[in-house]
């Protein structure tokens, strides 16, 4: 599905990612954990195609294509989905309009017809149940006036509708109370499948109690310094991140 090889990326001449290596196979859930400033958000932005990052070395292969050569929208159309840490508000654009535009963009790439209004609404309603969202959210402007939890649920709703091959969840747990965290996690778990890979980026172990990963990686100073299974996350919870700073530079677990 995804292969990241020796990825180096800089912002304004400052190197943030310093040689990331990661292979994600179809159906796997990977958690990437790390302290603030480790490069977690940079990694998700680079994978999703946000402007402003300079790739100085390495490559990213996604479904046999060079991901880094694709525009953000081309990546999305090919099934890469970024659930934003801070979903933006877009006054004046209704949620339903966004969902329809996004779905049709993906379907167009897949060579499928646009859904008609009735089929589309039926589909959206079924996905809304998954994240327990009320239909009134469809007619409100995208994220405008939504609570933190509603914004994150809205991200998962978009993911459920677009059915991506690779979902990158950037700090999806941040700002969520326990109830919202449960709803979001249930939504994500329902979307786990043999064909879909998920990368969860998080600071805290808490999320991993609800979405249990197959692999856990620790990111520090732009490198993956340790990899393991879900037990690694529990270990981190006990010891904190202080120990990762003591790891010798350039060490990859």
């Amino acid at each position, binding site marked *: 599905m995804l292969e990241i090889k020796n990825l180096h990326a800089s912002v304004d001449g400052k190197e943030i990612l310093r040689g990331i290596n990661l292979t994600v196979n179809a159906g796997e859930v990977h958690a990437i954990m790390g302290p603030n400033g480790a490069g977690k958000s940079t990694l998700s932005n680079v994978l999703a195609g946000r402007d402003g990052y300079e790739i100085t070395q390495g490559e990213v292969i996604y479904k046999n294509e060079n991901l880094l050569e694709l525009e953000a*929208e081309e990546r999305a159309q090919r099934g890469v989905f970024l659930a934003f840490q801070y979903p933006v508000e877009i006054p004046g654009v209704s949620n339903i309009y966004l969902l329809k*535009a996004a779905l049709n963009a993906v379907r167009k790439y897949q060579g499928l017809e646009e859904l008609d209004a009735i089929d589309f609404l039926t589909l959206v309603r079924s996905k809304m149940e998954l994240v327990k969202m009320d239909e009134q959210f469809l007619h409100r402007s995208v994220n405008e006036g939504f609570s933190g939890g509603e914004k994150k649920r809205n991200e998962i709703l*978009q993911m459920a509708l677009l059915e991506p091959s690779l979902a990158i969840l950037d700090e999806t747990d941040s700002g969520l109370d326990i109830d919202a965290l449960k709803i979001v996690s249930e939504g994500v778990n329902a979307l786990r499948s043999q064909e879909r890979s998920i990368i969860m980026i998080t600071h805290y172990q808490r999320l991993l109690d609800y979405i249990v990963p197959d692999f856990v990686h620790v990111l520090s100073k732009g490198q993956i310094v340790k990899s393991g299974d879900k037990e690694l996350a529990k270990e981190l919870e006990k010891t904190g991140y202080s120990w990762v700073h003591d790891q010798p530079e350039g060490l990859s677990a």
Partner: protein
Amino acid sequence: MKQLTDLATPFASVAEALISAEGTVPWLKKLRQDALTQFNVLSLPAKKEEDWKYTSLWSLSQQSFNHHAESVVIAADDVDAVALLQDAYRVVIVDGVFSDELSDIDALQSGLSISALSESVEQLEHKLGKQTELTKAGLNALNTMLMSEGVVISVEAKIQVEKPIEIIVVNTGNTANLATHLRHKIELESGARATVIEHYVGLTQDSYFTDVVTEVNLAESAELTHYKLQQESNNAFHIATLAAHQAQNSQWLTNNISLGAKLARNDIHSQLLGEQSHVTLDGLYLVDGEQHVDNHTRIDHAVPNTTSDELYKGVLDGNSHAVFNGKVMVHKDAQKTDANQSNRNLLLSRGCEIDSKPEMEIYADDVKCGHGSAIGQLDEDQLFFLRARGLDEVSARSLLTYAFAVEVLTRIPNQVIRDALAEVIEQRLPKTGGKV
């Protein structure tokens, strides 16, 4: 270099011919004569005048205009195609001449009267020129000395007009460099309610000149919802004054959407003369290429307990130039005034220019007034979000621009009109990505 005064002479000669024409009623003759005298003193406004600092009428003054339209026939289907609304009382003016055939005002509800200025001007003694001051600017004098067509609407007390009234002013391009001078008069007696749309359409990209003054008089508790949709040719001049007097408890909601013209200038003025009166003065200008649009608005809070709300938004592309000057005057005794004004602009290119000047002059001490002006570009985070959801860059930009623009429609109470205007705006956006 010639002075503007010299070049303005042709308008004066047309006015002289009108004044000396046989059969003109004496009071109208005098009104035109006074206007001509003023025009000869004031001439067309020049850039040294503060209100015309950013808008030059040089190119208008350079051009000679034709004041007599050759007769032209257009099909009812053509009018249907450009009309904003299909279910409305319709008044159609083609190349400056009222068309009885294309209009639909034969079966009016009782208490409503709609007529063409050319057919009813003799009954308008003491009615014309009440909301506009001849001396204020050369352009009102120009309109008064030359006005030849327009629409006169009056609604009797307590009558609610069931259907919107759409005034469609069409330029066919059949007469080269045609100048039309229109005067509309909208009069609502106490408690009357009506919706009026002024709609200006150019069928070609030719050069011509539309000059219009609209006078609005709202008696006690009258409510007028008024829209202006300007879709002139991109080579046309559109100069307009819209002025209202508002009595106690009257409500005026107006929305001014300016999409066309090479040079468009709107002077919009509300005088809140009775307590509890309210005006909502919204507008949108969407310009590109070499277009120039100038909106000057003024609201006078003349008595206590009046309210005003104003939102003007602009979208500028290409080398376009927009001017917004919004003045709110709170007079000495106008305590408890509540006035809000905002002008927000979206710049889509490096070549465009906006001059935004919100102004408040407050002479009362117990008031609630706020104003602001903002100029910005499309938000990069919003753009990335949409692209990360699969929308191509052109569609994403177009969607965000649309979302910015249509905010000015949110206060329109009539859903059909709001949707129709939203569609017009959507079609006017840069079209390269196609509708998603």
